[in-house]
């Protein structure tokens, strides 16, 4: 099955605008990077038309990353939900999330362009680990920028990146989180663009990144559509994914955008509750602005200063969102709703106990949101992208659920 090269009626135009010229997306970037972005755009488009590049990418996904991931009929969760829930198991991919698809595509493109070094930003560390993995596999130098706050709460992923040979640079500017890591990666890139590629971690940023990343992750939706047809004989009634920057979501959605009978839901991080102001529900509660190179929904104050986002999930803790999601929301093609930290953690435990699957907290937002959708759509078939696994989140889960201590006094140590 093809993972690349298909299109939808919701694609960007040649300047990177989604939803019409000037609406969402574009390229709000320093002139110093414009030539590099043009060069990347041309190289990417040529590569996607080159059967040998596409074959190499798809072969690598298959033999190295374990793609296509399966679609799993979650019977016991379905019983609880009152609807048939299918899970696209991206958590089973190498490195534990959908992100390996994006980095393998971008790293192969880097080699093709003759560049020798990659840089990446990371929040939770998943994109950083995936980038370090692809760089190790393809023999590229790799530097990962990570907010200092995140290096502390995701120390395990820092160690993984270092073991894979990447240099991890903690970022202390601004709020010391993902948005500042992106700022620092852009600063590096301005100075290193002649030999360095920026592996952007989500379907956001300046054109062509939103479309380029989509082309590498859209296999999620293309595969899932066919797998659902094979399994159930029809399309799902609704599909759902969590949305931070939105790469796993756009990858799933892309396969169904031109199927108007399939409802589409994106679940944003509601943090402590949207009403508290401590959240990352960018589309639901943000406003239109320009951040990190594209016009999209942004959490910002009256003066256009970025407001810090909050989420228990580092991977959703971002005050912007991919511009195609903004356009899909505005067009009414997809609905974006918030899920709180508490709802997500409850769903994490529910999936663990009903299906024996521990999801990433990001993906648990999609599960929690789908449970709400199931109430409105009893008995229907709901396809959810399980974008990543929860190993990286065990520290958070231990603290949240008070785990890690034995449930009863020790036995067998009697005098």
């Amino acid at each position, binding site marked *: 099955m093809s993972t690349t090269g298909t299109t939808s009626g919701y694609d960007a135009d040649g300047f990177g605008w989604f939803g019409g010229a000037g609406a969402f997306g574009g390229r709000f970037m320093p002139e110093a990077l414009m030539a590099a972005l043009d060069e990347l755009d041309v190289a990417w488009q040529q590569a996607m038309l080159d059967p040998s590049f596409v074959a190499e990418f798809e072969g690598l996904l298959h033999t190295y990353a374990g793609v296509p991931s399966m679609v799993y009929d979650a019977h016991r969760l379905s019983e609880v939900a009152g609807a048939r829930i299918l899970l696209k198991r991206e958590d089973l991919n190498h490195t534990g999330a959908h992100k390996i698809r994006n980095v393998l595509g971008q790293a192969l493109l880097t080699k093709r362009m003759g560049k020798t070094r990659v840089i990446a930003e990371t929040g939770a560390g998943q994109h950083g680990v995936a980038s370090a993995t692809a760089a190790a596999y393809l023999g590229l130098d790799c530097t990962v920028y990570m907010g200092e706050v995140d290096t502390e709460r995701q120390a395990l992923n820092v160690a993984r990146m270092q073991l894979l040979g990447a240099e991890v640079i903690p970022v202390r500017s601004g709020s010391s989180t993902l948005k500042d890591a992106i700022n620092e990666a852009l600063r590096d890139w301005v*100075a290193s*663009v002649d030999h360095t590629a920026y592996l952007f971690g989500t379907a956001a940023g300046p054109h062509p990144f939103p479309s380029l990343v989509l082309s590498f992750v859209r296999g999620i939706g293309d595969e899932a559509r066919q797998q659902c047809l094979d399994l159930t004989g029809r399309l799902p009634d609704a599909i759902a994914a969590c949305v931070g920057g939105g790469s796993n979501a756009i990858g799933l959605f892309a396969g169904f955008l031109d199927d108007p009978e399939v409802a589409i839901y994106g679940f944003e991080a509601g943090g402590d509750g949207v009403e508290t102001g401590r959240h990352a529900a960018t589309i639901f509660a943000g406003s239109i602005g320009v951040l990190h190179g594209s016009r999209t929904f942004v959490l910002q104050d009256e003066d256009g200063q970025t407001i810090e986002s909050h989420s228990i999930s580092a991977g959703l803790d971002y005050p912007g969102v991919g511009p195609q999601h903004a356009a899909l929301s505005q067009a009414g093609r997809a609905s974006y709703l918030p899920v709180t930290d508490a709802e997500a953690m409850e769903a994490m435990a529910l999936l663990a106990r009903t299906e024996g699957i521990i999801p990433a907290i990001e993906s648990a937002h999609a599960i929690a949101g789908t449970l709400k959708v199931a109430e409105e759509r009893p008995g229907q078939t709901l396809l959810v992208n399980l974008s990543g696994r929860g190993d990286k989140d065990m520290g958070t889960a231990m603290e949240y659920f008070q785990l890690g201590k034995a449930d009863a006094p020790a036995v067998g140590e009697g005098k």
Partner: protein
Amino acid sequence: MTSTSVAFDKARSEGRAALVGYLPAGFPDVEGSIAALKVMVSAGCDVIEIGLPYSDPVMDGPTIQAAAQQALDNGVRTADVLRTVEAVAATGVPTLVMTYWNPIERYGVDRFAQQLLDAGGAGLITPDLTPDFAPEWIAAADQRELDKVFLVAPSSTEERIALTTAACRGFVYATAVMGVTGARTTTSDLAGPLVSRAKAATDLPIGVGLGVSNGAQAAELATYADGVIVGSAFVRALQDHPDDRAAGLAAIGALTEDLAAGVAGVVRA
């Protein structure tokens, strides 16, 4: 002919380059930045750039990042930036705002342009907005004859230099190093070729920014650039005297005089 091009022309007629000085508004606080900018004017800056502090300044190095963050932490608002422009423009020196794009879009492009004009401001320098993505700003600026200063870089293709310089009014801003803002000890060998390429495309004056921090560097640059742009070194002068406002202003004055002598070709030992 806008006031900024007049200032460049005057410098040229005096056989020297223009000195363009930058400080962020609200650093160390609003009144402090106004006082420092006025010292820069009286000590020899021909053109003033006032930075609008922004939470995500991707083109700035640590010095200006820290200053902008301090201004934001102190609660500086877009309206304070306009107030700063009004105070500095009242000296008669052409005064531009250097800003990332989102704060302008959020304030309202037409609203900002009109209030900038009303405050006596000369125009905008837009480090993350290029002409091909600036139809709203170009329309608002053209309607009011405000300066539109876009940037060219060593990586710019000939085609992009042509596009960019054609869209500029006032002057063209050449970023002559590939990297973020910040004082540098050595001058860039990328500056000369970039200025030549820009001059081949336009009759507008070319201002060059590459981390100049003293008169000797300014003098070297002034041999081929129409304007020498200095930012981080002014910020540093204030940062070096965090608790002594008078000493900070004295340092700003001394730095300006050194740079002004440099652009005039007189380098002190």
